[in-house]
């Protein structure tokens, strides 16, 4: 290969859209007939270009390497003596040529597409209007009156179906149960009386049901979340110190009473 040709081949692989693109370039450079590719020459040149890459970027070059192995495979097949069999022997180059022809077709189509893009770029399409087109026509066949009636209906139904019963049910259910709601009130009361309390002493007295201890603890967490109490523990399993903060007010007691009573 003469130096000038060699320099031209020193094109970076990145400049090619893929192995087909590179093959085309080689076929054109060598002025070969695409239907009669001199596989041996092309393979040698192709390999040379691959080898010329100083550092092989496998991510990028893998597709080129696959083509290299295809070329080598075809070359080796062509070197083998052809044993005439009954059915006609296929030219080992055929599949490759078909692919190259297909690719060439789309490569040409792509430059046409590009031209179209250039002419499309000269068109401006405007924007949706920002004008106010007035109140859009009422789409839903419903009026506020119906909505109101609807609400009355469900409220009425609700009353009949569950309100009174559930109110008593809730009371019955709560009667013997520890609830966070009730417990918070209790914790608030204690914290209003004492700046700090020992969890174990106050909430985990002997004989306290474990459920009640859990509920007490949840209540304290709830208060802590609202920054109305601080929780301190020196180490795991040691006693927990609960300390009220400035945010805890007398009114909290009343408020919890209102909400939860």
């Amino acid at each position, binding site marked *: 290969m003469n130096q000038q040709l060699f320099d031209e081949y020193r094109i970076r692989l990145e400049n090619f859209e893929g192995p087909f693109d590179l093959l085309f370039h080689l076929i054109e450079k060598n002025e070969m007939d695409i239907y009669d590719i001199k596989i041996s020459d092309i393979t040698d040149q192709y390999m040379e270009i691959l080898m010329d890459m100083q550092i092989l970027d496998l991510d990028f070059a893998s597709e080129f390497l696959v083509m290299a192995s295809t070329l080598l495979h075809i070359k080796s097949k062509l070197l083998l003596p052809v044993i005439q069999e009954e059915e006609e022997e296929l030219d080992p180059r055929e599949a490759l040529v078909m692919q190259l022809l297909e690719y060439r077709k789309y490569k040409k189509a792509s430059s046409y597409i590009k031209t179209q893009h250039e002419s499309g770029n000269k068109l401006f399409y*405007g924007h949706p209007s920002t004008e106010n087109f007035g109140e859009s026509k009422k789409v839903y066949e419903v009026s*506020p009156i119906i909505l109101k009636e609807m*609400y009355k209906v469900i409220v009425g139904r609700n009353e009949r179906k569950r*309100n009174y019963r559930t109110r008593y049910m809730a009371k019955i259910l709560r009667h013997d149960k520890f609830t966070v709601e009730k417990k918070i009130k209790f914790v608030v009361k204690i914290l209003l009386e004492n700046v700090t309390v020992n969890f174990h002493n106050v909430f985990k007295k002997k004989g306290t049901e474990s459920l009640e201890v859990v509920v007490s603890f949840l209540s304290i967490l709830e208060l802590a979340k609202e920054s109305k109490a601080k929780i301190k523990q020196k180490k795991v399993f040691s006693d927990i110190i609960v300390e009220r903060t400035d945010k805890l007010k007398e009114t909290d007691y009343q408020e919890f009473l209102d909400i939860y009573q």
Partner: protein
Amino acid sequence: MNVNELKEIIKATLFAYGDIVAKKKLCDILQIDEKQLRVVMASLIEQGQPTNKGILIKEINDGYQMYTNPEYYDYVRKLFERNTSKTLSQAAYETLAVVAYNKNVTRAKIESVRGVSAGSTLNTLLDKGFIEEAGRLEAPGRPVLYRTTSEFLKAFDLHTPADLFPIETFSEEKKEVLEE
């Protein structure tokens, strides 16, 4: 450049820009002075009225803008109408009523009022843009709050949420429901 050509270029630029184009900018583009521009625009605006009245041009501040002839609003409006079915399911109306009358409301509240799970109905209403999330309730579990949208007001021909007919029994129910 003749006046007709100038007019066409002005139309193209006003259309493409879709907003007020400053007189100065137009003069720049057309290489004419403001006096010439005024003459061309006057003719363009006037000619719009009888022969080309779908799209009009008006002077706003120091520029010009294209706009649709308000005469055709009823037609144009139809383009922008939401292409949705005209009725909602009973469940959706009920849920909407609960949200509309309670301003900010949790899913638990809706379910407690209606006595059935509200998940899929809420999703339908969210999809249609009739309700939206409105933060979270500062209560255990921090449940999501829902409220109606301006889309709801439009579709139900209301101007403000206050346009809804007051429900007298409302205050009684509120506490009860919250307690559930």
